[in-house]
C-alpha cells in the first residue's frame, strides 16, 4: 500500500526554505520507506533529465534595432540640435507610421488617427458592435470577469475568432442533478435549504433487535412489535429527499418564494411530527422494559396509536417526496428547454447581427473565416457538463448575407455549429 505521507513530504522536499530539521525528518522517513524512496528517485530522475538541456543558439534576428532607432535613438540630444535631425526625424516618423500601421483619415470634417493592425483594430471594433447588437451587458472594467463580453483575436492565415461570454453560460440550466434513487439525495454544507434537513433522530431503543434480557420480560411480544414498527428512519429519508427536491424545484424556477416557504413549513412539520412520534415510541419501549406487571392492554393501545401515526407519516413523507421529485424533474426539463431556446435565440440574433455588420469585415482575406465561440453554450455531455458552441462563418457567406443574397437563417445554417 502506498505511503500516505509521500505527497506531502516530497512536495515540501523541493521547497526553497526547508528547515534543516524538517529536511532531516524527510530524509529519515525516505530512508525507512521504500515507496517514498522510489518516488523521490523517480522525481530526481525527471529533474536530472530536464537539467540536461543544452542551450540552443538563437537564430539571427534584428533585435528590434530598427524600431529602437526609429522611436528612441538620440532622444537624449538637446532640443537646440533638433533641427539638424529634422529630415531623419521625418523619415523615422514615416517609418514609425508604417511600422505601427498608423492610419490617418479625414472623415466628416474630422481628422482620425489610429494605430495598430487595421484588421485587429477592425476586429475590436467589430466585437464591440456585435456585443451591442446582441444586447450583452458589458462592463467598462476589463477585469470584471463576470461581465458579458466578446474577446476578439485575429489569427493571420486563419481569420477572426470571437469568444462570446454570455450570462447564459452561467445559468443553472441542468444542475443540480436529480438523485437517481430514493435515499440518494443528500444535503451539502452550505446548502441554502439546510433548514430542511431533519434533525438526527434520537435513539428510540426500539430499532434494534431484542436483547437477551428483553426475551425474558413480561411484554416480550410488545417489545418485539415496537422494534418492528419503527419507521422513523424511512420517514427521515423521505424528508431528506423532499427537502432536496424542493431545493431543486426552487432552483429550476418551478416554485415561487411563497410556495417554497409553504413547502418548507410542510416538511418542517413532518420532521417535528416524526421526531415527536419516535420519542414517544422510545419512551413506550423504556416503559415496557421497566414494567413488571403482566397487564398490557394500555401498552397495546398506545403502540397501536403510534403505529398508525408512523404509517401515516411515512406515507405522507414518501408521497410528498415523490410529488416533489416529479415536479422538480419537470421543472428542470422546462428550464433546460427554456435555456436551449434562449441559446437558439442568441444564435439567431448573432446571425442577424453578423449580416448587419458583416460588410465591415471586407478587409478580411478571401479564404479566412470568422469563428464565433459561444463560451459554455454547447450541449453538455456526461463527461463535460460545460462545452462551447462553435460557429464558423465563411467570409463570402457574410458578404452575401450583408448584400441580401442569403438570409440570416441560411447564414446560421451554413456556419455548421458544433459543441466542443
Amino acid at each position, binding site marked *: 500500500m502506498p505511503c500516505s505521507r509521500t505527497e506531502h513530504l516530497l512536495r515540501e522536499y523541493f521547497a526553497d526554505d526547508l528547515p534543516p530539521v524538517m529536511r532531516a525528518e524527510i530524509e529519515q522517513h525516505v530512508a525507512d520507506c521504500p515507496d517514498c524512496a522510489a518516488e523521490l528517485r523517480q522525481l530526481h530522475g525527471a529533474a536530472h533529465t530536464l537539467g540536461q538541456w543544452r542551450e540552443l543558439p538563437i537564430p539571427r534576428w534584428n533585435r528590434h534595432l530598427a524600431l529602437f532607432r526609429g*522611436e528612441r535613438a*538620440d532622444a537624449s540630444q538637446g532640443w537646440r540640435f533638433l533641427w539638424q535631425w529634422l529630415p531623419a526625424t521625418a523619415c523615422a516618423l514615416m517609418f514609425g507610421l508604417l511600422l505601427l500601421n498608423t492610419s490617418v483619415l479625414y472623415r466628416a470634417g474630422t481628422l482620425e488617427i489610429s494605430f495598430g493592425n487595421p484588421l485587429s483594430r477592425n476586429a475590436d471594433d467589430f466585437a464591440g458592435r456585435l456585443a451591442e447588437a446582441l444586447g450583452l451587458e458589458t462592463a467598462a472594467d476589463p477585469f470584471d470577469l463576470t461581465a458579458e463580453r466578446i474577446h476578439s483575436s485575429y489569427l493571420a492565415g486563419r481569420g477572426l475568432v470571437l469568444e462570446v461570454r454570455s450570462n447564459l453560460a452561467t445559468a443553472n440550466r441542468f444542475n443540480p442533478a436529480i438523485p437517481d434513487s430514493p435515499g440518494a439525495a443528500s444535503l451539502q454544507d452550505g446548502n441554502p435549504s439546510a433548514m430542511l434537513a431533519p434533525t438526527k433522530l434520537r435513539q428510540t431503543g426500539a430499532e434494534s433487535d431484542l436483547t437477551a434480557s428483553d426475551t425474558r420480560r413480561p411484554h416480550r411480544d410488545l417489545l418485539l412489535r415496537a422494534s418492528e414498527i419503527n419507521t422513523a428512519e424511512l420517514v427521515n429519508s423521505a424528508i431528506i429527499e423532499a427537502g432536496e427536491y424542493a431545493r431543486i424545484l426552487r432552483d429550476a424556477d418551478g416554485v415561487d418564494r411563497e410556495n417554497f416557504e409553504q413547502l418548507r413549513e410542510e416538511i418542517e412539520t413532518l420532521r417535528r411530527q416524526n421526531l415527536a412520534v419516535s420519542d414517544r415510541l422510545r419512551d413506550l419501549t423504556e416503559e415496557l422494559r421497566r414494567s413488571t406487571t403482566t397487564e398490557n392492554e394500555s401498552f397495546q393501545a398506545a403502540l397501536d396509536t403510534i403505529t398508525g401515526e408512523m404509517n401515516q407519516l411515512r406515507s405522507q413523507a414518501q408521497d410528498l417526496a415523490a410529488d416533489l421529485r416529479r415536479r422538480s424533474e419537470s421543472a428542470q426539463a422546462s428550464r433546460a428547454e427554456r435555456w436551449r431556446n434562449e441559446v437558439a435565440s442568441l444564435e439567431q440574433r448573432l446571425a442577424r447581427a453578423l449580416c448587419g455588420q458583416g460588410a465591415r469585415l471586407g478587409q478580411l482575406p478571401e479564404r479566412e473565416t470568422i469563428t464565433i465561440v459561444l463560451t459554455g453554450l454547447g450541449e453538455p455531455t456526461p463527461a463535460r457538463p460545460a462545452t462551447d458552441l462553435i460557429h464558423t462563418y465563411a467570409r463570402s457567406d457574410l458578404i452575401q448575407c450583408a448584400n441580401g443574397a442569403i438570409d440570416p437563417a441560411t447564414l446560421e445554417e451554413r456556419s455548421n455549429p458544433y459543441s466542443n
Partner: protein
Amino acid sequence: MSKSDEQLVAGALAGSARAWRQLVERHESRIYNLGYRLMGNSEDAMDLTQEVFLGVFRSLQHFRGEANFRTWLFRIAHNKAVDLNRKKKLLILTGGLDENGGYDDLGLRARPETEPDHDLAALQSNRQALELLSRVPLEQRLVVELKIYQSLTFEEIAQMQEISVNTAKTRFYAALKKMRFAPEEEHALLEN
C-alpha cells in the same frame, strides 16, 4: 567592466542603441531557450523572443529598477507565453494546428546525419527534456521552467503567476510526478 542591466536600461532609455543591443544580446539566448522549452519548437520560440523584447521595449520606461531586471523580463516572458499559448489553442480550435500545437517539433528528424556528434548528443538530451515537458500543461511547464531553469524561488513564481506559494509547490510536484520515468523507461535509460 561590463555594465549592469540597470545601467543598460538607463542607457537605452537615454536613446543609446548600443545599450539596447547589449541588453538584448545579454538575454536573448536565455529567452529563446525558455521559449523553446515552453512552446516546443523553434518558430514559436523565436516568436516568443521577439514578442518578449518588443514588450520590454514598449515598457522600458516603466522599469523602475525596484525589481531585478531578470525577474521583470521573466514576468514579461511568462505573460507572453500564456498569450501565445492561448492563440495556439484558438488555432487548434479553428483547425489551423494539429492537436499537439507543434510541440516537440525539434526539426531533428530531418537533420541528425548532418549534425556533428556533440550536437547530436545535445539534441538528444534536449529531445528527452522536451518529451518530459510535453507531458504537462503550460501552467505547470511554466513553474518547472522558472524553478529548474531560471532558479526562481517558489515565492517569486507565486507572485508571477498570481497564485499562492503552496499552489506553486503543488504545481511543481504534480509536474515532476507526471514527468517521472516509469520503471521500465528508467531501466531502458540506464541501458542506453
